[in-house]
């Protein structure tokens, strides 16, 4: 099942590398049966209402901050483990501790079994993608001044935290290509939800 995700990512990467999809569109796949409580639009509703305004590419770029596992969304720039240590000590240490294990906020470095809370369920043993660390750090950290780190600083502190977890060497420098290439120890652990209701407890 985890292969399924991998396939999706590979296909997506291939699609990104080629031409943008054609502008023609078709109605998205409907759920097998519309929910009884989801009212459909009346038959005389127009194709388009025209409420809202067009978003220019510049407008989209302003907010389009997410980073996907294949590296889509990673900005230009780079950062080293050494630079990341300086960022960490100024902006992260206070909440995550000198070695990323002391808190008071979330543990960043795994020191226990992957499924053990909290020592194992940290970045090294439990996070499946390095892209997530960049995405989350840039969007939400530092907690009291979110969004204030420059992209180079985010690359650097991501490199440092990955180094604390033993995943990149002390002389590592991360950029878009090298970060997307990192294979995380937990990448093979995740499987889609197999609960379906019915008589079997999963």
């Amino acid at each position, binding site marked *: 099942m985890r292969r399924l995700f991998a396939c999706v990512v590979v296909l997506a990467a291939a699609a990104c590398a080629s031409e943008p999809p*054609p502008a023609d*569109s078709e109605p998205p796949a*409907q759920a097998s049966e519309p*929910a009884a409580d989801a*009212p459909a639009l009346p038959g005389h509703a127009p194709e388009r209402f025209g409420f809202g305004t067009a978003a220019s590419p510049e407008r989209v770029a302003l907010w389009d901050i997410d980073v*996907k596992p294949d590296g889509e969304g990673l900005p230009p720039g780079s950062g080293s483990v050494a630079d990341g240590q300086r960022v960490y000590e100024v902006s992260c240490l206070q909440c995550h501790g000198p070695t990323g294990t002391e808190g008071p906020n979330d543990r960043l470095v795994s020191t226990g079994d992957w499924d053990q809370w909290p020592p194992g*369920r940290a970045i090294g043993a439990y996070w*499946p993608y390095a892209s997530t660390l960049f995405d989350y750090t840039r969007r939400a950290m530092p907690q009291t001044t979110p969004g204030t780190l420059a992209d180079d600083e985010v690359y650097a502190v991501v490199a440092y935290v990955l180094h604390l977890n033993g995943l990149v060497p002390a002389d590592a420098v991360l950029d878009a290509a090298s970060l997307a290439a990192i294979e995380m120890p937990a990448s093979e*652990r995740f499987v889609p939800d197999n609960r379906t209701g019915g*008589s079997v407890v999963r």
Partner: protein
Amino acid sequence: MPTRDKHGFSRRAWLAAAAGGAAGGLVLTRMDALKAALPQDPSAQLPDPTKVPGRFVSELGRRATREQPRRLVRSLALSSSSRTPLHELQGTITPSDLHFERHHAGVPEILAEDHELLVHGMVDRPMVFRMADLRRYPQASRICFIECSGNGGGAYSRTRMPTTITAQQLDGLLSTSEWTGVMLSTILREVGVRRGASWILAEGRDAAVMARSVPLEKAMDDAMLAYGQNGEAIRPEQGYPVRLLLPGWEGNAMVKWLRRIEVSDRPTMTRDETSRYTDPLRDGTARQFSFVMDAKSVITFPSYPYVLPERGWWEIEGLAWTGRGRITRVEVSTDGGRSWTPAALQQPVLPNSTVRFRHLWNWDGRETVILSRATDETGYVQPTVQQLWDARGERTSYHHNHQRAWKIAGDGAVTFGLGDLL
């Protein structure tokens, strides 16, 4: 004589009031009991209301002086939660000011007139919608619950099974409202979803810029962009001015303060769908995108810290809910799970909403354990904790929907009783 525990309840006061002269032999209702549990202030002796004129009309209503339910705040931190007082509420609708909270970086201050929702990605027409735009689209309302998938985790550890825990503490990350908004399918139709799209990313305007990936199928089915809650604008704590509503799914995916939807062909793998809100399993894997909240129920009366002051007729009641359509049956056991009796379900039973169940019980005054178990329309029966341990292991997280139990002692004191059954 009254002793108050850390939650502000006065069990002894209730016991004293119930057993003493105040009731004059009447069986107290639970609301009487709750009122009796509040401290009695001698200065609050009220004049005969038939002999003095009442107060004037007012612009904003207020609760009765003695009816002051409160959320239970976990900690004053940016990433924290507060829980709905399930054991003090009636019916199924949660008063909006008691709706549970779970924020990852506090509650943002947002003006609706400044708010914009960007919809882009694999669409023909990337667009920005202001709130006035969203409100102009055809509108829909529906009643459904929102539950944090971490709800109930406090009663999953074999070695740390609690006894003095309230339904609010255990399951208070559950609330039900009537939500009003525009169906997300209407907005996606407007922008024109492109061939090959299969996911959306929903992103909030809070300081965590909280983001979750959601399958397009759900987005096109019954997802709503909700801007109304119980007849008024959605509360800031619930995502003002607009949130994503995914009926029956885990609360975290219903991104609040929604500012961006990106249509995509794969999930983004955000922090809250990888390192959090995933469920480690005993076979060494971790379940991801475990969106649906399975069938669950909890007895809210009698529950800790209530005390049954005397044997006799008591109505057991509680809430049942499922993210897989409708609850079809709730059973109650008053003998520790040896025998089960169908409870009455308050109509209407709505899909993906809470249902109030009731079972009239003649307590013989002997110590026992009471439980409830819910069944949904797929035939899924709320499992025992042992069943969940067997299926997922004891170190799993989230989706702790196992049966809950309350122990009734011979003196009527109620404690959480799951540990007694293990």
